[in-house]
């Protein structure tokens, strides 16, 4: 089940941070906690750790595309060998730009895909998200029924309002 708590007005951010700290101290894993807001919130790493592998993914994608394009280009140039301008059939001078661009394309596409993956967008069966109004921050905790009280307490302690539960009671 999910527990949602809303934070509004002035120091909402501070209170959210406090609630998060509280939750983490009570043993809730970072992956079970989500913070919803209308604008990016800066949450210190030690409070809510979100590890990102995007750079790594981008580099991997780039390398992959680079290898693929080199293979593809050498295949196409040799598959129907035509001499032009006395140039070698395959040379890095003449094709370097293409390799570079496709490498970059690889980085761009993986970055985008990785963004979708890390953000969890387009994923099916996502739990219902709270409707966040401007200025409002909402914390969603995934918990078992037996943990729900602890979670609720944490939220309340931090000043959350309108705490509601949703989802299957598991």
């Amino acid at each position, binding site marked *: 089940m999910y527990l949602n708590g809303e934070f509004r007005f002035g120091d909402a951010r501070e209170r959210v941070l406090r609630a998060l700290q509280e939750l983490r101290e009570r043993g809730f894993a970072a992956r079970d906690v989500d913070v919803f807001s209308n604008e990016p919130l800066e949450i210190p790493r030690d409070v809510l750790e979100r590890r990102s592998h995007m750079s790594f993914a981008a580099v991997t994608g780039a390398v992959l595309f680079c290898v693929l394009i080199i293979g593809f280009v050498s295949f196409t140039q040799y598959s129907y060998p035509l*001499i*032009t301008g*006395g*140039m070698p059939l395959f040379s890095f001078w003449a094709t370097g730009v293409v390799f570079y661009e496709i490498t970059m394309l690889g980085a761009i596409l993986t970055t985008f895909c990785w963004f979708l993956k890390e953000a969890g967008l387009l994923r099916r069966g996502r739990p219902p998200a709270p409707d966040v109004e401007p200025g409002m921050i909402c914390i969603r905790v995934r918990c078992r029924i037996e943990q729900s009280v602890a979670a609720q307490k944490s939220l309340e302690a931090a000043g959350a309002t309108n705490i509601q539960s949703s989802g299957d009671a598991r």
Partner: protein
Amino acid sequence: MSNSEHRWGMAIDLDRCTGCQACVTACHAENNLPLSDPESAAKGRAVHWIRVDRYYEGEFPNIRVKHVPVLCQQCDEAPCEPVCPVYATYHNEEGLNVQVYNRCVGTRYCGNNCPYSVRFFNWFDPVWPSPLELQHNPDVSIRMGGVMEKCTFCIQRIKRSKDDAAAESRPLKDGDVKPACVQSCPAEAMVFGDLNDPGSKVSQLAESGRATRLLEELGTKPKVFYLQKAT
């Protein structure tokens, strides 16, 4: 660079050339060049695969005229070739700079990159008022609008000569192949032949002291040799 049997080349003797332009018309007749009209000619769209460049040198009365027939130089390292994105122009085994009309999409990059400006573009589909089209040489395709074209060293004549030689089961001899311009030249200023054959007339002329190549400094390695005027 190529290890094929032939490597076609040409020598043009500027000491013989009179600038009469018989070669220009011969090329038109042989290769079905599109007809220009005053409008297209005024726009610089007249097509002459071979042209006779004329330059005046000096001032009257000590003035001289220089005639240089310029056709596709069939460069060994042709700048026009690598820039074509669709391989419409490439180097064939006999060293010819081949233009494949059907493959051309008309980027005209090759035309820009030809320092000799011997590439011509079909701005429209060509038109011949009937019955002028009866003259068309069936050995040469009619180019549609939107594609580049240029001198082929009369590749169709090379082919015919090869076929003739094959039919008579003899090897191709020096002088068997004559592109239309070479054939037509009254002063016999042009010689065509196989540069792979050291005994051919063109090879010998290319080795002669008078032989130069157009814009040689560009390193395009043309296969047309100009024999400078002896004085």
